[in-house]
């Protein structure tokens, strides 16, 4: 049973100028799909198409099963200049009508995990890029969604932050949450993703688990990085 079935025929920002063509992917419960591709391949555009944020979007996105909602963690932290970190979290909690006690317990844990407790009443716009990224992760994990859509989560995060993030993702997956993660960090993706969708020039270059990707690239013992480069070079 899948959480979401995505079938994008064409999608883009302007009429008759599609950036994405014929992209189909399914995300099942507990699955972690790595969306991999070079700069400008269309990874973020696919994410926007799934969320219905594109002006030109000919696609079908079907959520199924016991799907509740999704949580999107963007590549660039999106923060409010006039609010403290705590106020960001409170706003998110009240919009999603999270019970106050649950909110307090969960937030305290997340702030502690990401070592942001001491700056909870500071304005995150003054934080470093990595700290801002952690704020976005906390906001994402606050919601307990059925699906996480995460765009380049490792940029700016320190190694401990990455470890904590991965452990939270693992916990969520154990509870059945699906994850779609766009990333350039192929080494990490190879270790944690259950399957991959390799994108180039707005279309799917290859998809499947590591073994299937290896077969498609004809590199039987190749790493994800090697397979990716091989597949890319074949298209040039």
């Amino acid at each position: 049973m899948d959480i979401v079935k995505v079938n994008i025929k064409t999608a883009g920002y302007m009429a008759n100028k599609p950036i994405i063509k014929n992209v189909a992917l399914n995300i099942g419960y507990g699955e972690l799909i790595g969306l991999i591709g070079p700069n400008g391949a269309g990874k973020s555009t696919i994410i926007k198409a799934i969320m219905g944020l594109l002006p030109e979007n000919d696609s079908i996105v079907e959520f199924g099963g016991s799907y509740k909602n999704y949580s999107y963690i963007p590549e660039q932290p999106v923060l409010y200049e006039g609010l403290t970190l705590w106020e960001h979290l409170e706003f998110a909690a009240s919009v999603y009508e999270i019970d106050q006690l649950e909110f307090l317990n969960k937030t305290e844990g997340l702030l502690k995990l990401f070592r942001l407790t001491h700056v909870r009443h500071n304005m995150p716009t003054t934080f470093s890029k990595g700290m801002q990224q952690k704020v976005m992760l906390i906001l994402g994990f606050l919601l307990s969604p059925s699906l996480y859509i995460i765009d380049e989560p490792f940029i700016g995060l320190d190694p401990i932050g990455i470890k904590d993030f991965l452990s939270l993702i693992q916990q969520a997956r154990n509870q059945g949450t699906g994850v779609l993660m766009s990333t350039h960090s192929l080494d990490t993706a190879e270790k944690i993703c259950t399957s991959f969708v390799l994108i180039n020039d707005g279309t799917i270059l290859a998809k499947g688990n590591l073994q299937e990707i290896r077969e498609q690239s004809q590199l039987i013992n190749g790493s994800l990085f090697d397979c990716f480069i091989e597949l890319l070079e074949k298209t040039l």
Partner: protein
Amino acid sequence: MTTIRKLFWHRLINGWKYQYSVWKTVFDWIVALYIVIPFSAIFIDAYLGWWRQVPVELNYIPINGFLVIFLVFLWSGTLQVFVEDADQIFLFQRKIWVKGLIKYSLVYYMIKNLLVSLLFSIVWAPFLLLHYNFTTHMFVWLTAIIFLLKASIGILKQLLEFRVQGWKLGLSKTILLFLTGVFLRQIVSLLLNRSILFSLTFFTLITALIWLIYQRMFISETLLEDISMQQASKLKFTNVLLKYAGTYTKKTTTLRTSPWLFQNSNIIFKQRNPENSLVEICIKSTLRHSSNIIFYFQVIGAYVLVLTAYPPVLKWFWWGVSIPFLIAMVKPFWLESLNNPFVSMFPLRPEIKLSAAIRSLFLMALPGEIILALIVLLLTRQWLFALILFPLGFFLSKFVAKKLAMFS
């Protein structure tokens, strides 16, 4: 080859082109034909009329009251140093270039101030010469004082911004504004009384300006602040237009890590729900940007001046007019809050947005309405009138807030 002078001219002309392109978006030929040209003609006609006969209302305004207009003019604007974002990388280690840009910016600032001071004085010349008994000689001296004071205050405000932050800056500026008012009043009084002290004060003012220019030239490590101020100044008008259009514009990030109001993220409304949260973040983010507060109280101050010029009954009428005016004034604060990318990430139902808009507009305009009502009450002493009009004003506020919120 690029020289400092060429770079300065290039940036100055680009700045003018940019401002022209922004103005052009508002003042197309239709606006020019139906608003700008007729209003200019009306103003010129009124101005020529003032030279024949000054308005009788001036009899109610003493010279010290009239000087408030001059004080507002003196306080407006500051030195703009023509630096850009990329200068952090390319010019940071080229101190001579940065100093050169500051020097040229100062020269431009002086010339611009001289011209606007001349224009400003010419506009008010009929009142000064025909009503307030200034001789031509005195008028010329007053123009010189206005120029010197405006130039000095512009630089002094900037030096304060480099050295003081947060509430201390607000307090320092308020004290400076008060002292400027007192100084202006005293120097005009000395001028009108033909006191020998006037010449002495005048030359002290020239010395002070020279000292301030020297200080501004040689103050070190201000490139980042200069860039931030230049960006804010360049985008000032654009931001106002975008705010009214409901488009979010990114604010300059302050160096302050914790806010000066609601420091511990204290809540305004005890009950947590999406509507209360929306109202709360709108109020908090508006209050936490000092430029919003300054703008709010500047408008209130200007409105108080308008109120003083009318007879008692009309004062109440103008107070009533202030209600939709103030609500319209705070609406961009609400739109800015609603259109913030962070808020846009969350799914909010239209009816929640609408009820939050009504409450936000009502609550943000309320302090201004109360201040104006108290001032009218103090000026008119019509207590009975107030008893009837205050509740009416309250309901009118609610009604106008609802109507204006619907156009969000």
